[in-house]
């Protein structure tokens, strides 16, 4: 009965449960005098075989991203104008040439992936099990989930489609519609001006009758629930809080330093010596091979194609005489002028510092989503039909009854403790390791059926859960960056079903207690065990004690770890 935001969660429940989260030359710039000789020996001087340096491959990948991103498939095959992006790459080349200078440029993606993997695997507020409305779930409360819904709607189009087991959920937000259908593109200015639209989301869940074509199941009869939701606080990476955090961050200070470094007037000569020859070489090879590859990379969005283009660009620069001459001239300048050498070293150092500060910043951004938050949801539930068979003598009759639909208004509040990197937030009630979640709802029948003992007020529901991270658990050998924690959760659920009052074999008050221990056993794999005690079932008054255990597979965690540890 616990519902959490999850990207691709599939849950098969029961005693055994499985969850799968799842150019033309420009006017010549003033040229600094080249020093033809006097350069000190440099074992790391690389004027050829640039593609063998992984740091340079990563630096040129930034140029490739601009080529692919700026390519306009609808126009004639003109090379995208990307001359302004060579400077940063050439600065990286020159930094690599500095003797005894170890590039940390390549640190970027590795750090990024490591941070992401650590954040994803440490996540304990994610719905891997079935949502509370589905049967067989091991949890009793629903956590706040609009940010992920919003992120999906914004990042992937006006409507998202998620198939999980035998159900499919279509979700969207007013902001997704505003930006998808002409009210303006998804700029940050529009995002900031549409707070109401980014704080709300709607979704509908359908029972899937044909798994090979789930969208074919979209019909009124197949709806199991629809929901409108408004969150109290924007915790997405697009929020103003993230922009404010950046403005006062160490990352901004280093980014300012990098920008100041790159705007040094010496880069006018770098442009002449390196940027323009590099750009000319790129344009010469456009028609020969790059055109098709870039168009293909943009069409498919396949990052491996970008890597191939990056390698091709570097090989092209290896063989380009103008670029090679420019490289020697630039290096001669650096070698003969202490101020230039210091500038290149500083830029190289600032770029490395930037990578580390960016990693720290991402951790702080992740913390912004923590602390107190909540949402209000209004939904209409369409319970499954109930089939009953009555035996009478030798004859048996079967009747199928449509369960009446009802509205539900729900308030969800949660507090996830901040990590050690940020202690500016108000503490959660469960201190530094416990996440508190509270749900309360009231249900109403729009058309109560008196013969079924229904009144307008169907009932009320409240649930409370405390979840604690207990450390890495029993797993002694973990993959690098795997921050999965063993978790313990205690939850209690109370439900008042008014229509059960004075009904034979039914109880109006249902109380359920649950304790659940989740033990990580491998990358993205966990072993949850839960015990549930209930005062009665919704359809009968029998008390029960139930034990559930199983294996959950979280493909998001596994993917993040594979990327980080590749």
């Amino acid at each position, binding site marked *: 009965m616990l519902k959490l935001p999850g990207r691709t969660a599939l849950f098969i429940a029961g005693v055994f449960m499985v969850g799968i989260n799842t150019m033309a030359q420009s006017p010549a710039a003033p040229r600094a005098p080249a020093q033809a000789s006097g350069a000190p020996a440099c074992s790391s001087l690389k004027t050829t075989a640039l593609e063998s340096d992984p740091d340079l491959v990563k630096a040129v990948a930034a140029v490739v991203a*601009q080529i692919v991103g700026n390519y306009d498939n609808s126009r004639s095959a003109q090379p995208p*104008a990307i001359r302004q992006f060579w400077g940063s790459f050439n600065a990286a080349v020159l930094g690599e040439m500095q003797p005894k200078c170890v590039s940390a440029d390549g640190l970027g993606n590795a*750090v990024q992936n490591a941070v992401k993997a650590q954040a994803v695997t440490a996540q304990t507020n994610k719905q891997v099990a079935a949502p509370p409305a589905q049967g067989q779930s091991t949890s009793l409360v629903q956590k706040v989930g609009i940010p992920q819904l919003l992120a999906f709607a914004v990042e992937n189009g006006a409507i998202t489609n998620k198939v999980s087991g035998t159900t499919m959920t279509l979700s969207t937000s007013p902001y997704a519609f505003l930006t998808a259908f002409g009210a303006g593109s998804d700029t940050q200015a529009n995002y900031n001006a549409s707070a109401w639209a980014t704080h709300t989301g709607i979704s509908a869940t359908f029972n899937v009758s044909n798994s090979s074509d789930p969208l074919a199941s979209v019909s009124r009869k197949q709806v199991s629930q629809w929901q409108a939701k408004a969150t109290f606080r924007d915790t997405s990476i697009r929020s103003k809080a993230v922009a404010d955090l950046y403005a006062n961050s160490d990352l901004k200070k280093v980014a300012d330093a990098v920008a100041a470094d790159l705007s040094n007037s010496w880069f006018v000569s770098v442009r002449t010596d390196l940027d323009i020859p590099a750009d000319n070489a790129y344009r010469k090879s456009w028609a020969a091979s790059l055109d098709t590859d870039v168009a293909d990379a943009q069409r498919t969005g396949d990052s491996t194609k970008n890597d191939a283009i990056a390698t091709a660009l570097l090989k092209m620069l290896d063989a380009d005489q103008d670029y090679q001459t420019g490289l020697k001239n630039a290096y001669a300048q650096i070698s003969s002028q202490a101020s230039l050498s210091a500038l290149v070293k500083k830029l190289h150092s600032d770029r490395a510092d930037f990578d580390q500060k960016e990693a720290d910043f991402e951790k702080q951004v992740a913390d912004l989503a923590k602390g107190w938050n909540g949402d209000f949801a209004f939904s209409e539930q369409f319970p499954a039909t109930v089939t009953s068979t009555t035996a009478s003598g030798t004859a048996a009759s079967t009747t199928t009854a449509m369960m009446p639909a009802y509205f539900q208004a729900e308030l969800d509040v949660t507090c996830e403790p901040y990590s050690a990197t940020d202690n500016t937030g108000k503490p959660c009630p469960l201190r530094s390791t416990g996440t508190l979640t509270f749900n309360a709802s009231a249900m109403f029948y729009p058309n109560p059926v008196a013969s079924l003992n229904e009144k307008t007020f169907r009932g009320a529901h409240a649930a409370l859960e405390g979840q604690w991270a207990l450390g890495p658990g029993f797993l002694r050998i973990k993959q690098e960056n795997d921050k999965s924690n063993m978790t313990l959760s205690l939850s209690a659920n109370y439900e008042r079903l008014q229509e059960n009052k004075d009904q034979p074999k039914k109880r109006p008050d249902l109380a359920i207690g649950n304790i659940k221990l989740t033990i990580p056993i491998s990358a993205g794999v966990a072993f949850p065990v839960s015990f549930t005690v209930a005062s009665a079932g919704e359809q009968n008054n029998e008390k029960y004690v139930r034990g559930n255990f199983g294996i959950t597979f979280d493909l998001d965690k596994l993917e993040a770890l594979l990327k980080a540890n590749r």
Partner: protein
Amino acid sequence: MTQDPNDNSLYTVASTERVTLSLQSVQCNCLTSAGFDGQTLAKQSAAPDVYSFDVTGNSGDQKVFAGVCTFSPSNPPTAHYTVQVSGSLGGSFQASSVFKTLPAAAFQLFFTIA
């Protein structure tokens, strides 16, 4: 101000002309830094992030503007920043967009004094 028809990173400006750059993020938060002629620039306003600077010097001098656009790993691959350049004596131009590169993408624009 004029833009080189063959190179949208190259501009010709009048001496003492004030240049304004507007960086608008699309599908990502607006997290930018900028420098001109070796100095950090302060942002004039946010979302879009606007930077202004005076290009001073002698005829033929070339000055460099550098921008750093930060992205998040969670941004979609199509996340980018648009770059609008305008001069106080007239002329408004679009430079190439800056597409997602982790952790950031840097670019340079060159201003030659007429």
